[in-house]
Structure formats: C-alpha cells, structure tokens
C-alpha cells in the first residue's frame, strides 16, 4: 500500500475543483459554438471575439456603474445584439453555400473585431475586478469563492438554456429547425428569426463567459483566441452539435489537464486536449459523448 501514500490527495482534490471550474467556463463557451454549428452548420471562428467583446463591454460598464452584475447583464445583451447584427449582415446571405464561405466569413469577422478592439482599447490588458473577495481554505490552500461562483453561474446559464430548449415554444422551434429546416418552415416556424435568435443566444453565452472569466485573466484583444481553440476541441470531442456532449467533453478535458499539471508544467498540460482530440478523431470521430450512430 506504499503507492497510496505517494499520491498527493490534497493536490488531487484541488485540481479536481480547478478542473471542474475551468470545465464549466469552457462548457459555456463551447455550448454557444456547438449550438450555432448544430442549427446552421456554421463553424463560427468569430466566437472567441464575442467572448472578448463581452469582456470589454463589461470593463466599460463597470467603469460607468461600478456594478459587476449589471456589467454581466449588459455584456450579454450587447454581445447578443452584435451577434444578431453579424448574423444578418454576414452569414444570412451565405446560408446554403459551401461551408467554406461561412468559415472564411466568420474568420474575417474575427480579424475585424480583434483589430477594432486593439485600435479602440490599445494593447494593454484591462482588468475586471472580482465582484467579491473571500476564499475558503482547502487543506493548506486558499480557494477563492469567486472561482466557485463562476462554475455555479456557468452551470446555471447552461442549465437554464437547456430548460429553455426543452420546454419553451422557442426551444421546440430551435430543435425542429435543427432537425429539418425546410419542414420547420413548412410548419410555420419563422426560421430566419430562429436562426438569428440562435446566433444571438450563442454570442451572448460567449459574452457572458468573457465577463465571468475576465477577473481571472485580464481583458485584451486576443483573449478570445486562447479559448476558441479549446472550445473547438471540446465541440469535436463532444460530438458536433451536441449540447450535453460539449458540456461533458469540456469537463473531461479540463479535468485531464488539471491532473496533468500535477506532473508536468501547465504549458505542457495543454497538450492533453490535443491528444484527446486526435484519439477521438481516430477511434470515435462522431464524438465521445454521443450515442453510437446506427
């Protein structure tokens, strides 16, 4: 039983919590991405920039009002609006074309938004203060309440969205549109509005995650980029377009990365997600957390 004592149980517990916290934020980013892919087959490369814009809108709102929670709401609504505008002006004209055109278009939008942010706010990172201080003691380490709150809020947003999809009229419209867009229209569902609405909701989820994560990393024009790559990995591993799969994949990958940092440096731990991605693509390309297709 010697080896049991060799395992650093306290660190393992901390890393489990770290993994779940990081996983919930990642899940929030990836949910918007997978939702947009699932319903309109658009791979949205600008998703990370909505996260970044959400964080900047929060910075400005906090300067004006000193309220973090108000900033969270304003940023979510603001990114929803920007998302709807981007959808109507850029993506709607391209629907039904080669998927490559929407990839190029969203990549273009991403570059425009990033450079706009650089021009408008400059290269120096801004800070979103944590809305409250305080920490709990886990073994010998202080663990901030805010981190736990982020995980809880992310879970609440995703859970709320799931209920909305499951029970509301709009939820039925969104699911019907995902399953058969033409038949949805023939049943009187205003599909153009549903698509714009979904893009707005997905963008708002990215914006909200930018605000929630802002206090931990600092806000700059490139912050979306770090997230989007990982979010794409999560979406693929979780099964393209599957909301539940994305949430599970986000937590799974984040936990693996968190455990890996027990033995290697955090930068090296980042390799874990790519290893998972490659193994998934090799052995189960439809996704780890979806039912095997018949």
């Amino acid at each position, binding site marked *: 039983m010697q080896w049991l004592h060799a395992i650093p149980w306290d660190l393992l517990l901390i890393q489990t919590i770290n993994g779940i916290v990081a996983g919930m934020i990642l899940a929030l980013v990836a949910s918007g991405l997978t939702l947009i892919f699932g319903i309109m087959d658009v791979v949205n490369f600008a998703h990370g920039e909505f996260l970044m814009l959400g964080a900047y809108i929060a910075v400005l709102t906090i300067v004006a009002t000193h309220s973090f929670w108000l900033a969270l709401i304003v940023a979510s609504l603001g990114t929803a609006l920007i998302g709807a505008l981007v959808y109507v002006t850029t993506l709607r004209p391209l629907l039904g074309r080669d998927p490559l055109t929407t990839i190029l278009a969203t990549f273009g939008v991403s570059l425009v938004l990033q450079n706009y942010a650089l021009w408008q706010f400059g290269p120096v990172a801004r800070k979103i203060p944590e809305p409250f201080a305080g920490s709990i003691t886990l073994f010998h380490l202080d663990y901030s309440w805010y981190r736990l709150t982020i995980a809880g809020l992310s879970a609440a947003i995703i859970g709320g969205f799931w209920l909305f999809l499951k029970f509301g*009229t709009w939820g*039925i419209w969104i699911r*019907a549109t995902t*399953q058969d867009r033409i038949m*949805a229209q023939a*049943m*009187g569902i205003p599909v153009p509005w549903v698509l714009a609405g979904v893009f707005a909701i997905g963008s708002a989820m990215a914006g909200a995650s930018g605000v929630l994560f802002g206090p931990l990393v600092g806000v700059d024009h490139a912050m979306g980029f770090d997230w989007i790559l990982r979010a794409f990995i999560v979406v693929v591993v979780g099964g393209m377009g599957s909301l539940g799969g994305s949430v599970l994949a986000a937590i799974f990958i984040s936990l693996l990365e968190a455990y890996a940092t027990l033995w290697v440096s955090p930068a090296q731990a980042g390799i874990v997600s790519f290893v998972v991605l490659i193994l998934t693509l090799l052995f189960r390309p439809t996704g780890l957390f979806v039912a095997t297709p018949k």
Partner: protein
Amino acid sequence: MIPNGGVADPLLRVEDIHTHYGKSHILHGVSLDVGRGEVVGLLGRNGVGKSTTLKAIAGIVHPSAGRVVYEGRQITNMPPHRLARLGIGYVPEDRRIFPVLTVTENLRTGLDRHGVTAARKRELLDKIYSYFPVLAERRNQFGGTLSGGEQQMLAIARAMMLEPKIILLDEPTEGLMPRMVSQIREIIDVLHRDRVAVLLVEQNVPLTLDAGQRIYIIEKGVVRHHAPAAELRADDAPIHRYMGV
C-alpha cells in the same frame, strides 16, 4: 395556356407555373384550381412533376414563371412559414417527421402560433388525439421511433394543427399496409367534412378517384386532362392514356 379551372372563386389557383431544377425544366406550365373544401386529385406517373407542383404551392420550390393565388391573393415566392400561417398545410412524400421531437412536440410545431389561446390549443390537441388514438398513446415517444403508418398519421395531424384551409398531401398511402391505407382514406373524408380542401397527389388511382371530386392528370410537367372524378370512374380511358395503367 388557359388555366385548367372549372371553379368560380377558387381557394387556390395555380396559373401556368414553370420550375427548373438545376438545368432541367420540371414544370412546363401547370395550371389548376382547388375550390373551398374540395378534394382534388393529381394523378400522373413517377417523375412528371406532381410533387414539384405541391412544393411550388408550399413555397419550398420557387417557380421561375407563373403565379399562385390563394384566397384572391398572390402568394408566389412568399416564404414557406408565412404560407403555413395563412393556412396552407404541407404533408411531404417522405413525411419529414422531426425525429427527435416527441409526438406532442411535433404537433406543437404547428400549434404554437401567435394568437392561439391556451384553451384553444388544448381543444385542438384533444380533437387531433381523438381522430388519431394511436398518436395519443405515443404522445411522449420520439417521432423517429414510430412506424411508417404512424409517422404518416403524425405528418397529417401536424399539418392539421395549423387549422389549414387546404392540405397538400403528397402520396400519403405510399408503402403503407392496406389497413393504414383505409385509415388515410377516412382522414381525407374527415378533412372534407371539416371543409378543409385537399390537393392529393397519389399513385393509388382507385383511392384518388374515390376520395376526390375532381382530378387532374399531369404528364411531363403539363396538365393533360382534367375531369370530375365521377366521369373518370365511369370511363377511365384518359387514365390509361396518360398513366399507362
């Protein structure tokens, strides 16, 4: 080309529509009328443009020429969701049930419309479930798990949730067991009794002649013959001529 009318003040009038699919010219000027509450059959061989005619009326295929008039109003090129709200129900050939929505959710796609009160929604659902007891039994099952016949019932029931003035029925009996075929036949009578017009595309000639009041026979994208169903029941020579049966 003269409209193949025969109805004064029709609910639906299709005037000389042409459609193209890629480079192929599918409809070469189809004209037909459907009166209020009338069951009209559209017969023809495979691939002559019957389904395309229904799709053009439902707004899923855009005619390159010609017009569709509904309740005296030009509806050509209107988006399908607005046509559905105007009361045009579409039941496609391949049924196109939403596979991972439950039976009730499938029905709600047509029911959750602006201006329908909760009481009215319940009433409509109850009515549909009394027409289709098998759907009531399966109300919480996913559409994709139903049998072919049940899916056909659901497709028709779903269109009925729109409280339509006309239902476009595309080969509803295709591939169904005889018992299911007679149920579909009864539903058409129910619709007729409820004053819902039906434009019925079928390969099943006896059923169409029996259920319909008037028949159009289409060949190579054009209406070749138009007659009351009773006339064709008495003399089916035109059917032999254009359908080769």
